[in-house]
């Protein structure tokens, strides 16, 4: 078992499972919570992640194939998606279709929002570009919602990620993303969400550190 990534919520391991190369995601206990509550929360989030991975597939958004879920150990075993993280693709000098990729990311977020699925943790690290498909990961903080505010926050999360990880390309990238989003949700909805996005930003929260 190799540790690939240490997240705030979970650790990600690469593992051999019955001869398959798989990803094992394990939600770790939090010391500050009493054991009973902690176990319950990790269980709920594991269930939520699995459900949303499934729901996303139904609306044509690619997510990893699920192999096994263990609610006692709070682990999910899923297919290992070969490819580049969108973050890496956007930073790679030899990757030329950056704007198209952002357009497609916008498209994908639009599909989720049309179906009332909020991702809750959208970053360019949570998406993998595999051949021509974008796979969406880390849906454990997501939820079903049609609230304008939730959609605004979701878009703001990805905007913030683009801003901090891909500053130089940010403007073009974000415009392309919004264009992709608009294509799926329609002009009116896109306008409403981007307007709310600005409002949320003007409240002064979710702002970037200068050194990022």
């Amino acid at each position: 078992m190799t540790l690939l990534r240490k997240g705030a919520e979970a650790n990600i391991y690469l593992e051999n499972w019955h001869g398959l190369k798989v990803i094992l995601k394990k939600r770790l206990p939090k010391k500050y919570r009493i054991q009973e509550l902690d176990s319950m929360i990790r269980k709920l989030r594991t269930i939520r992640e699995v459900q949303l991975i499934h729901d996303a597939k139904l609306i044509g958004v690619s997510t990893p194939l699920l192999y096994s879920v263990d609610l006692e150990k709070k682990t999910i075993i899923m297919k290992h998606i070969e490819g580049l993280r969108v973050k890496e693709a956007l930073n790679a000098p030899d990757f030329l279709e950056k704007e198209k990729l952002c357009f497609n990311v916008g498209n994908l977020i639009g599909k989720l929002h049309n179906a009332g699925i909020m991702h809750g943790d959208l970053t360019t690290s949570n998406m993998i570009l595999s051949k021509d498909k974008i796979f969406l990961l880390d849906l454990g903080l997501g939820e079903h919602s049609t609230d304008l505010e939730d959609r605004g926050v979701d878009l703001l999360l990805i905007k913030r990620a683009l801003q901090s990880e891909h500053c130089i390309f940010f403007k073009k990238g974000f415009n392309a993303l919004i264009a992709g989003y608009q294509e799926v949700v329609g002009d009116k909805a896109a306008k409403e969400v981007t307007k709310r996005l600005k409002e949320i930003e003007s409240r002064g929260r979710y702002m970037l550190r200068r050194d990022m």
Partner: protein
Amino acid sequence: MTPKIYCLGVESTAHTFGVGIASSDLEILVDVKSVYKPPLGQGIHPKDAAQHHCKEAPSVLYQALKKFGYKPDLIDAIAFSLGPGLGPALRTGATVARAIATWLAKPLIPVHHAIGHIELASLLTGSKDPLVLLVSGGHTTITAFVEGRWRVFGETEDITLGNLLDVFAREASLPSPGGSSVESFAKKGVEFIDLPYVVKGNDVSFSGILTAVKEKFEGDYRLEDICFSLQEVAFSMLTEAFERALAYTEKKEVLLVGGVAANKRLQQMIQEVSEEHDAAFFVVPKKYSGDCGAQIAWTGVLAHQSGVYIDVEKSFINSKWRLDEVNSPWRVG
């Protein structure tokens, strides 16, 4: 060398009418207050709080000046809580502050109540650039100083933590202050009762818990277990949101302030996540955790040094003043 500055501060945002005097030599010289206690089982009615403040103001002010050796002429500026808070209560303090400023012909300084909490706690703990958790009856806010202002990185979407504890304590006829009653009952809790755990990004929502604990109280549960579960769920939610903000801002200091900061279990949880992120943990001393004039007086000293004043004619209170609308030119960041 700049001469020593004295500032008198008036606090009246909610149940407390307080007068404090602080100096630019980092001293809190005077801190006098009178706290309005509503009848058992009732909340603070803004009008009653204001009446209490009107009645108590002369004697609180008199005691403060007495402790200062009856030397009002030494005072260089008058600061007061401009907001946020209960309108009628704020107006009482503002009236007192305007009167003193006019009488002494000294400048009037508007102070944001939350910044008062943070600045006094910073002075007393030595914390320089913290991620702050402000938890009281009026606030539940995760904030850090970025680009000239206290920016909000997370907050309650509905009622505050102090409000949650107070309202439940009242429902359960526990003596005031509600928060410490709940804390002492919680220590004897053993059985965990499931309550709504709502964290949205960096925000929390407590109204679901309040409804649930009221129902549990009517049902067949021990009060100790309800208090225990109430604390565990509400504090865990807040700690989770706080941990996310800490990971995001990468601050190396943590400062816990406000009335609920006195709660030992909350302190323990916030200290644990602070240590996990290698951040130094500071908590406001209990004596100054609640609302008091010293918070306003000390912030007034800082504001005076930066030339932040307000004309008496324009010194309208702002009961909904948001923290991230206020500049703090004396802070670096």
